[in-house]
């Protein structure tokens, strides 16, 4: 195909943002942003339709010299792992536009421009095949995200935006040093595939592993460096939370998959126990914190820490089930938690409170809302028939195979998940009506439905028939695993 499909996917939102600059009315801005994001989604679906699931090779590759003097190229390409996240990003992009339709009524144009630039940069991260290009996309995301949280966020938005910015910046800068060290140790190239083929000495791998770990752990976020997340989530507008939970947190895990595992296989194997323990800690600690929350958004935010623990646990189990489960959970978490943040946003728009204690009996006032909320709550709990069940099962079985104690901790985390999620649902939806009495609350409208339905379909589709999704990642994951175990058989 002569068409640079990936460049189109990445730069369509940029072009859309440029068009928005010239529009005057807020409604025109909203409709254009929606059209652009749907067009982008359509491009992604077209890409998936012609995606070859039988090869682990990078597909739709594009390569142009960018800074020849330093061996930097503009290189894009995707394999099964990135394909899944390109799709997720584009899907959540459209949903974010819908979710901010009425929630954002100040500086709509600037918001939509930020949102679309954010989408372009995230897509760029998943498509980049050059480390320098990857870093540019990765780091540039800070600008729109900082503005989204800081300008359109809640009361404590400025503090939250600062914290988000500085945490990620400090982490990423060490990653940058790691990238440069890798450049000089890997034959002066930024080409990700060429670097993957290198065999670095263990001490170098070891140092790089920790340089990368800091950057990725901040994004995931793993437990000691997770404190920016609840602040950012709680203060961000709904669309910001969806982006954060749906895509941004995936970037860290994606970094492990794309860089740490294939480029530093020995170090990854050597430090896998450490990573498993940190993941187990995140699962249990995040679950306990979620259990103690009264703020609905905080609860979902802390549950994210727990769920992302499952992802890293699956990844560093370093076996097929663990890896596939981890990747699937990344996708599931994007869908489910994205949806949960959307639901928090919907109810906040109506009641202007996020305190769980003030809700209750929503079932009567908003039956459709609560029905879908039930679906996503169950999905977050990983009930059979929903998407997360498949992923969590794979992660747990991979985790047990890797380390019994860690597996046991993960099961405990899953139990905690059931506890806080069921508790949340009971207090919000069931029981005597309180909100319905004090606030005027109406059920979801057609626009909101349009945002919810695709996610609900994905939840059930993945839960009942996960094969197409596993099929996309399968070959790439097997290849990745072979890379790790071929080269990474211990120092």
């Amino acid at each position, binding site marked *: 195909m002569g068409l640079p499909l990936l460049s189109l996917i990445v730069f369509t939102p940029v072009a859309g943002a440029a068009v928005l600059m010239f529009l005057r009315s807020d409604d025109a801005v909203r409709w254009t942003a929606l059209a652009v994001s749907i067009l982008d989604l359509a491009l992604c679906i077209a890409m998936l339709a012609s995606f070859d699931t039988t090869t682990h090779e990078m597909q739709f590759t594009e390569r142009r*010299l*960018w*800074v*020849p*003097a*330093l061996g930097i190229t503009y290189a894009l390409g995707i394999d099964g792992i990135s394909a899944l996240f390109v799709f997720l990003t584009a899907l959540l992009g459209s949903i974010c536009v819908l979710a901010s339709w009425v929630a954002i009524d100040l*500086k709509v144009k*600037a918001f939509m421009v930020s949102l679309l630039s954010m989408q372009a940069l995230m897509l760029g991260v998943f498509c980049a095949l050059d480390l*320098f290009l990857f*870093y*540019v996309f990765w*780091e*540039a995301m*800070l*600008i729109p995200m*900082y*503005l989204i949280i*800081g*300008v359109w966020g809640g009361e404590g*938005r*400025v503090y939250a*935006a*600062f914290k988000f*910015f*500085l945490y990620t*910046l*400090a982490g990423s*800068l*060490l990653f*940058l*040093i790691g990238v*440069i*060290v890798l*450049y*000089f140790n890997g034959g002066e190239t930024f080409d990700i595939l060429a670097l993957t083929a290198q065999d670095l000495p263990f001490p170098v791998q070891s140092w790089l592993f920790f340089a990368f770990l800091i950057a990725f752990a901040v994004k995931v976020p793993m437990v000691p460096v997770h404190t920016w997340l609840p602040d950012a989530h709680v203060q961000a507008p709904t669309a910001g939370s969806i982006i954060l939970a749906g895509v941004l947190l995936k970037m860290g895990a994606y970094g492990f998959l794309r860089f740490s595992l294939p480029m530093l296989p020995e170090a990854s194997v050597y430090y896998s126990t450490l990573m498993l323990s940190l993941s187990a800690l995140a699962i249990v600690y995040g679950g306990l914190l979620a259990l103690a929350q009264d703020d609905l958004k905080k609860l979902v935010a802390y549950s994210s820490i727990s769920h992302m623990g499952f992802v890293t646990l699956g990844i560093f189990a370093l076996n097929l089930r663990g890896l596939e489960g981890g990747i699937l959970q990344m996708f599931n978490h994007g869908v489910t938690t994205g949806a949960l943040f959307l639901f928090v946003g919907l109810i906040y728009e109506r009641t202007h409170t996020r305190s769980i204690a003030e809700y209750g009996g929503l079932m009567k006032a908003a039956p459709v809302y609560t029905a879908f909320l039930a679906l996503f709550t169950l999905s977050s709990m990983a009930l059979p028939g929903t998407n997360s069940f498949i992923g969590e099962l794979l992660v747990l079985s991979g985790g047990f195979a890797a380390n019994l104690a860690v597996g046991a901790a993960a099961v405990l985390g899953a139990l905690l998940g059931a506890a806080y999620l069921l508790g949340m649902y009971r207090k919000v939806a069931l029981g005597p009506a309180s909100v319905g009495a004090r606030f005027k609350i109406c059920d979801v409208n057609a626009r909101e439905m349009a945002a919810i339905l695709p996610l609900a379909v994905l939840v059930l589709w993945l839960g009942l028939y996960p094969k197409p999704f596993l099929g996309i990642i399968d070959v790439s994951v097997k290849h990745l695993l072979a890379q790790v175990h071929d080269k990474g058989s211990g120092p």
Partner: protein
Amino acid sequence: MTAAALFQSALASLPEIVVITGACILLILGQLVRRGQEHFLVWASVAIVLIAALATLILSGEVRPAYTGMFVADRFAVFFKFVFYLATILTFLLSRKYADIEGIGSSEYYVLLLFALSGMMIMASATDLLSIYVGLELMVLCTYVLTGFLRRERRSNEAALKYVILGAVSTGIFLYGVSLVYGLTGTTQLDGMAAAVTGDPLDPGLLLAEVFIVAGLVFKVGAVPFHMWVPDVYEGAPTTITAFMSVGPKAAGFAVILRVFLNPLVAASDVWIIVAVIAVVTMALGSFVALVQDNFKRLLAYSSIVHAGFALFGVVAGGADGIASVMLYLLIYSLMNLGIFGIVILMRNGDFSGEVIEDYAGLAKSHPGLALLMLLYLFSLAGIPPTAGFFAKFYVLVALVERGFVMLAVIAVLLSAVAAYFYIRIVMVIYMREPERTFDPALPPLVRATLAFTAAGTIGIGLFPAWFLRLAQHSVLTADRLNLQ
């Protein structure tokens, strides 16, 4: 000196001659300019610089040594001269309206800037400690006067006085170092020094001389421990002059540092350790003190200290890539810093000074375009991609890691994370606060053009750094005297 040699020398220094002659003519013509005709001065000054630039371009084909080893016109000098031209022309364009408002639009203002420019050009080309001294003094004497140009303001007078006294001391220190070198080696030529130093590695007297010369030069770029003058002088000087000083003379200082220290001394001693320590301390001090500044000009002063520190890391790295990284850094820094100063300058209107950071609260609401530009410059200064500032830092880090200084690179990036905080704080004030006043910036076409140009540079070099990188590397490699490694 034969007539032919004299002609060759004059030819090599033609750009300098053009600027100095032009400045002298303008000094006379300036007396005849009537009130309301001041724009003539701007265009005449710009024309002089453009003619000099044209001469530089025409002569840039080959290396031309001149004045019996005092002076050379090589690619290295050409690169720096173009940075100076850029800084000077943009300063002229920014000055017009500001000079009207402040009532400093007399011809001396432009003439002094032109003389300062010629001083910087001599510094970039000088290959002898004495010609360096001549260029240096020509430059700083003009900036002393320009700093005190707001005659009615106490702050400006005080800044000028402080600058003169401290500058004189640092010049004295520099001259003492030069005299030591002359006493010990019998020469002040850089090449001769190189030979003398490599002959006898660690003469303690020479080491002392090095330290004195370092001290004199470090003062000019505003690095620790000779940074004390920077915030006061930057704050007190007219903002246009602050903008000029933060890029032009600083680049000139680095031109000399690169020529002096990467030539004779790297081979001879571990002088890079001194420079590394200076770089770390400079960045640390600049970043942490900037965190608590309320005055925009003071903050930018500390920011310029931080950037001097970062560029010094490139000097530490040395080698062709290290030198090229410093050069590219200075070019990019000039663009983004003049951009941000441009905005500060155009804020000066009526009774509004635009010097307090809080003044900018809610700028995004009333002037979205200006706010967006400011956002661009600030993120570029903080080194966030895809802006040029990121590439500047990136290349310095590449040079550092290439030479094995990974720890220094880590320190450099951690300190830039601290520095990022105060740039982001300004973004916060602009975007996340409600406006407390109405803005009425002075936005004449010249200022608009300047801002457009610097913005295009800040984005353009960030997205397409290849050409500029090659230019910097090219300028280093053909300056064979620098290519020691």
